[in-house]
């Protein structure tokens, strides 16, 4: 059975804009991978079409069938993690092995408070 994993240092899952994320990735594959890379990305989810932004990728050279590597990736200044009724913007670290699009994802939060920003409807005036 194939297994891909992402661990951040101290198990952190909430980061400030501009902060450095450090951690390790590991994988155990049944079939060899030509490439294994870690992606830092944001994506939207909700009522409308999805937008995705891949902010940075960390390739791991000469991936073995079973391997463990360290990574460092810097969080950009934005966008922040937020959620409302119509749309959420989510951040994730994603480890992808190709071919086969074998992947694992770790959701993270990016904001100045390290909390997801909640968008609430403005109460009616008067």
């Amino acid at each position, binding site marked *: 059975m194939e297994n891909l994993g992402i661990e951040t240092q101290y198990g952190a899952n909430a980061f400030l804009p501009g902060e450095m994320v450090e951690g390790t990735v590991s994988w155990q594959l049944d079939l060899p991978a030509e490439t294994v890379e870690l992606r830092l990305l944001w994506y939207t989810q909700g009522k409308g079409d999805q937008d995705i932004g891949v902010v940075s990728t960390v390739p791991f050279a000469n991936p073995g069938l079973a391997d463990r590597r360290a990574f460092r990736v810097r969080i950009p200044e934005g966008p922040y993690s937020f959620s409302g009724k119509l749309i*959420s913007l989510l951040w994730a670290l994603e480890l992808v092995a190709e071919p086969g699009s074998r992947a694992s994802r770790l959701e993270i939060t990016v904001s100045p408070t390290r909390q997801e920003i909640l968008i609430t409807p403005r109460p009616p005036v008067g």
Partner: protein
Amino acid sequence: MLARDNPFAVQRVLEIRYRLSGLTWEELLERLAALRFRAALVGPHGHGKTTLLEDLGNRLAAQGFRVRAVTLHEGDRRLDAAGRRAFFHGLAASDVLLLDGAEQLARLAWMEVRARTRAAGGLVITCHRPGLLPTLYECRTTPELLAGIVRDLGEEPPPKDLLARHGGNVRNALREMYDTCADRPALRSLASPQPLPE
């Protein structure tokens, strides 16, 4: 309920694949071969034509065909440059062309597509009405189909009249379900943030 938790978020709905009714995938592919791989998936808006076309493309690719797909949107009366490259350049018998929204094309543009894609191994289109190519499959929707989709998304069955209120348009019915869920109180928050130690 927040968008990320809404079971009817577009990304979750798109994971639901087309459910054929009255025939199997093998029978559909046999029918397509009998039509020399030139055929149409027919149905009104929101009846699953695009999803079926995508699934058909995946099955044809698995059979060894090289699939080239073009999607037309409201008002696209002719293929754009990328579409023309995909459909008119270097065609071989191993190519199957998928054209989503063929009814958008002007008559002359459609005639050009038909004439210039003869070298391809196949041309499968979606359109709202029959007539452009022989009909391979007519996409229909039923309250049972909608209920099955809603069940697969982990929700209670929808109101019985929901599909009828949307004229059979499953996409719009699911949008209404999204709004209904969005008005519910938030169920949960993201996992407690675990910041890096200072």
